[in-house]
């Protein structure tokens, strides 16, 4: 299961290379010259910044609350933006048309050609808190009530897909960040300790990682999921999911870090630091771990997709974020039916595309970072 185990095969590869690598000579310069060579990595990075901004500002960007139903608009298809008025004149302000249910059984909607709902920006709607702090009732866009705007359609309860996608991104995009924060802290700490101190600490930690790595991750996830009390508010379920994923993720990293530290412990600068009488912990924290950073950054970037896809798999197994809260995983899985695929494709394609783009952006960025942070590849590239 490639996308479950956070230390991806890609990461393992980096590990192998990074082990043989000594710190780059002029990191900043080399890094930027290299990054410029991979436009895909830069594009990925920009896309990610954009996505995370949207997630942070979700309540403001989303026109409606994620749980708000519209009982006259189940399975409303995405509205088209119009620029030309009915009388043929160009409209500076795009507008959408009111669409009415034409056939109840098939959820076929027809546009009302007479209606025009101009898309307005910075409109007043329901009260929200931006970043959980700033109270406002201004939303990025909307149309005049009682009209509704559904740029990406609605789901089976008449809930706006844009809003659910945005609120869902708050979960799906942070799963990876929080997950690697946990697993990397554990992995760095325990791997560092094992590699630096050796002895019984090394033995115990390595036996534990062996144990964790010997059980296929998906089995672990499912077993852990059974233990995990599902009878919790959404936010805590979400934290639980991250904890499960992170708990599984740290072992592989710890082993690699141990290897790195082990090779570094012998190096001159550590010996020198020790000779100067610095404490061991300080040596680990200040001198040894920073030298593993280029590896860690790349590995972290490449592990995040594992968490995002992991959330999808957990939803597939029925243990992800639960209704009525949205996450990309549960949106995708709710649309996992023949009817949705054939008649309401936006329900599957919207979250599917969001996941796809995010994962791809992380992969490109990680790949670019690896090339940029790996000096040997630089020379290799020129040879």
């Amino acid at each position, binding site marked *: *299961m*490639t*996308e479950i185990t956070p230390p*991806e*095969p*890609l990461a393992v*590869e980096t590990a*192998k*290379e990074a082990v043989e690598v000594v710190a780059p000579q002029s990191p900043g310069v080399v890094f930027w010259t290299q990054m410029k060579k991979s436009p*895909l990595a830069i594009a990925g990075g920009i896309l990610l910044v954009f996505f995370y901004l949207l997630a942070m500002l979700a309540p403001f960007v989303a026109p409606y609350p994620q749980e708000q139903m519209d009982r006259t608009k189940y399975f409303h298809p995405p509205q088209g933006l119009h620029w030309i008025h009915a009388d043929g004149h160009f409209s500076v302000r795009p507008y959408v048309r009111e669409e009415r249910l034409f056939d109840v059984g098939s959820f076929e909607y027809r546009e009302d050609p007479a209606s025009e709902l101009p898309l307005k920006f910075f409109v007043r709607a329901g009260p929200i808190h931006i970043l959980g702090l700033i109270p406002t009732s201004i939303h990025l866009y909307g149309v005049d009530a009682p009209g509704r705007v559904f740029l990406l359609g609605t789901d089976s309860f008449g809930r706006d897909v844009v809003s659910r996608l945005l609120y869902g991104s708050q979960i799906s995009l942070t799963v990876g960040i929080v997950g690697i924060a946990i697993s990397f802290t554990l992995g760095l700490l325990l791997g560092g300790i094992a590699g630096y101190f050796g002895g019984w600490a090394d033995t115990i930690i390595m*036996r534990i990682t*062996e*144990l964790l*790595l*010997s*059980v*296929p*991750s*998906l*089995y672990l996830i*499912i*077993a*852990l999921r*059974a*233990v995990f*009390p599902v009878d919790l508010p959404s936010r805590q379920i979400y934290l639980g999911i991250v904890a499960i994923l992170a708990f599984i993720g740290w072992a592989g990293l710890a082993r690699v870090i141990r290897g790195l530290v082990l090779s570094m412990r012998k190096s001159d600068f550590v010996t020198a630091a020790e000779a100067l009488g610095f404490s061991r912990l300080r040596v680990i924290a200040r001198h040894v771990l920073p030298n593993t950073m280029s590896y860690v950054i790349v590995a972290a970037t490449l592990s995040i*997709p594992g968490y995002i*896809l992991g959330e*999808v*798999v957990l939803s*597939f*197994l029925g243990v992800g974020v639960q209704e009525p809260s949205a996450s990309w995983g549960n949106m*995708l*899985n709710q649309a*996992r039916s*023949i009817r949705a*695929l*054939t008649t309401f494709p936006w329900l*599957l394609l919207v979250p*599917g595309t969001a*996941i*796809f*783009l995010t*994962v*791809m952006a992380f*992969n*490109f960025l990680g*790949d670019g970072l690896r090339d940029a942070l790996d000096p040997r590849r630089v020379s*290799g*590239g020129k*040879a």
Partner: protein
Amino acid sequence: MRTYVLRRVLQTIPLLFGISLITFLLLQLAPGDFLNQMAENPGISAETIEAMRLRFGLDQPWYIQYGIYLKNVILHFDFGESFARHQPVFEVLQDGFNNTLILAGAAAVITWGLAIPLGVLAAVRQHSWVDRTLSLVSFVWLSIPEILAALLLLMLAARTGWFPVGGMRSLDYDDLDALGQFLDILHHLALPALVVGLIPLASRMRQMRGSLLDVLRLDYVTTARAKGLSERVVITKHALRNALNPMITLFGYTLGALVSGSFIVEIIFSWPGLGRITLDAILQQDQYLVMGAVLMASLVLIIGNLIADLLLAVADPRISYD
């Protein structure tokens, strides 16, 4: 070498013990037990359930249950019985295991069959459009959620009729001759194997590319080139052989992941493998069946790693194990 293998084999014993203990504890921590779901059936009374609890030994505290389990495993090599099926655990797992191996094997053929030639191509044409396109395409595929890919292919099969809609064999499988049976399974295998096989393709391809590039920088290749050998000969006769060594090791490591790698796809494509059996067993808390499945999958993983380490020793004469 022999001592090394022996030591590694002995090391797996405490490992398996630890795995079984963890799994058992997790199962115990989960709310309810196997008999719980029966309680929902109106036709089954509390007395029936109590009687069954007694019969299955579920009324005992967990350490006693685990003790009995261990005793049976060690003394009689008896891994218990599935509660739901009243069958020995390994009898239940056997067919599923074989079917999973078939799928995983086919997927591995796709992955490696594509990764090696494409990786070589990318390395030889480094920085060319071929290299870039290959890397782009494989990354794109890597980014599609497995569930989405499986679902879309299943729909394709349903729409076009080119492939069966899931399953492993046609209904008339038994009436076919040997070749027909083989082709029938192959026909059913194509789509799920494609989904499982293409996911790791991007990384394998990159690894092959990187490995070959490393070798191409070495002195002896330069020497070979200097001797005026054609690039084709240099690569096929000299470089490739050495570049494949790390790939062989990697193959060993991925062997272990095979058993659990196709879990989701198996479920979506109704492939009768371990995935479905295990998922059902976990959902039903059929505890000895879960234990058996986890132990089996872990054992395969451990053996895979062992094989990888041994392959490494065989491939690289500098490494020796004593």
